[in-house]
């Protein structure tokens, strides 16, 4: 049982780390400036000079995929982290305190949940105007109710455990109990969810950029590379294909991390 988990963790974790490093160090790794246009070399397939080919403006696709990864992964990781930070606390408060706090927080996240995630993201990004920040905010808000719901239900389970009563009897205050006892005991499933929703956020970012609501051209992101590539998919499929492959691989990698963590974080088998 340990072997497949270990392999999955190693592959998923290694791949995720590699993607993040490639994106982070893209200015040093990328062979060319991702914004450099050259009409002489437009719409080329892979060549010795341009490994991933060039797009309609003659820009190097490899460099654009690397630089695009900065935007896509930054949004894909930052947005769920922000969302988790807010959502986990809100969920713990709702789950622990119950009563009107719970009703208020649960009903407002239900309200957000009633929109399809992508539609909600599109609405928020459109309202805020397309930019890097609004993509982060849109995705963070879209994922927020999921974190609230997950942390609320996990908190409700932990709250009924006698060790919480023992802690109250010991004289610990509510805030301290939530921090010291509830959070560590619900962290496992939340970390798993976080890595799975990073994968979701990468897809959402791609979708927003594809719709023109993410990072703005000429700055590359995987989503807007697909969008640009769509106009001539038959003549030059390479930009869209490589950007799409980058999205697929990232989503796969973070999903693998999530699945592996799910097994690893079981308090009695792992850690």
């Amino acid at each position: 049982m340990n072997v497949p988990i270990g392999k999955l963790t190693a592959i998923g974790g290694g791949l995720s780390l590699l993607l993040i490093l490639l994106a982070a160090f893209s200015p040093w790794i990328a062979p060319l400036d991702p914004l450099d246009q050259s009409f002489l070399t437009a719409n080329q397939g892979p060549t010795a000079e341009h490994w991933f080919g060039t797009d309609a403006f003659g820009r190097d696709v490899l460099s654009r995929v690397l630089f695009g990864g900065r935007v896509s992964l930054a949004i894909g990781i930052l947005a769920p982290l922000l969302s988790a930070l807010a959502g986990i606390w809100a969920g713990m408060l709702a789950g622990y305190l119950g009563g009107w706090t719970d009703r208020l927080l649960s009903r407002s996240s239900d309200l957000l949940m009633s929109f399809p995630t992508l539609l909600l993201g599109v609405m928020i990004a459109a309202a805020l105007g397309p930019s890097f920040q609004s993509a982060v905010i849109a995705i963070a808000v879209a994922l927020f109710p999921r974190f609230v719901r997950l942390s609320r239900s996990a908190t409700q389970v932990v709250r009924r455990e006698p060790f919480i009563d023992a802690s109250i009897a010991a004289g610990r205050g509510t805030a301290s109990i939530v921090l010291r006892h509830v959070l560590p005991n619900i962290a496992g499933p939340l970390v798993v969810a976080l890595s799975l929703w990073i994968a979701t956020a990468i897809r959402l970012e791609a979708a927003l950029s594809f719709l023109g609501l993410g990072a703005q051209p000429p700055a590359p992101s995987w989503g807007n590379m697909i969008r640009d590539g769509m106009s001539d998919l038959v003549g030059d499929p390479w930009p869209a294909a490589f950007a799409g492959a980058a999205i697929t691989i990232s989503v796969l990698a973070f999903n693998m991390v999530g699945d592996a963590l799910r097994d690893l974080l079981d308090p009695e088998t792992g850690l």
Partner: protein
Amino acid sequence: MTGPLLSVQGLTKHFPLKTGQVKAVDGVSFDVAAGETLALVGESGCGKSTTGRMLLRLTDPTAGSIAFDGEDFLGLGRAALRRRRREMQIVFQDPYASLSPRNRVEDIVAEPLDVHGLCESRAARRERVIELLRLVGLDAIHLRRHPFEFSGGQRQRIAIARALAPQPRLIVADEPVSALDVSVQAQVVNLMQDLQEKFGLAYVFISHDLAVVRHIAHRVAVMYLGRLVEIGTTETLFSAPHHPYTQALLSAAPVPDPERKRTRIVLAGDVPSPANVPSGCHFHPRCPVAQAICRESVPALRDVGGGHRAACHFGKPFPIPV
């Protein structure tokens, strides 16, 4: 100090339902003296655990009063309540659930010390935890382990060490040995008795196991459907039970002596739902000696001699028809 350590008057807990309410605990009164063990016995659902939780304000009573060391415990503000909680601790039934699975033994046992700022340095804290572990028969090698590495009996010892940490005067033990193997039960019960002698602890010992109760309790209070039906010293209550329910309860306990003749009183029917309690004496529909008055009026807890009190209109050890 002359008064009782803990004095409970008319303690009541009603849980609201969509229609009506569950009278989990209905006007329970008793005292616990310093250094004494009072056992609360009764069947599942009779309200004994709820009573135990109310003693520590883990559940808020609907009505009634609790005085700890002569001070009104229910009226305490947040800060005063925290200070008081040092003096009363709890041990739960399920030693698997009462210890946080993520924490190490050192931090679990030290929790009350940390909360009340009872240790000045990490070294002092560790020393105190080791001292507590040794008191309950564990050792310093267990400090860095997690709860899942222990057996049920060892975990209950950890829970007892935690309860002892702030040097309480009263420990509410809610079925502390019911989840343990019989051989381990005896060890834990004996440990609790040793600790009582050593520190002059008072216990409110909640249990349904009459053999254990007889062994550990100085006094016994019997509950039925949220009310106290009889309270007295262990000796008198076991030898001369005055309430028919107590008699039936005692007769149902297995006696490990094949020579002794047993007359088992089998009660008719089931315990009524606490959401729909009988009028008058809660026990009257199942009582083998019930009369008309039992349906109409609630019997008070009356002294039947030497502080032994029973809530029965007839208040004497009857011969119950078998």
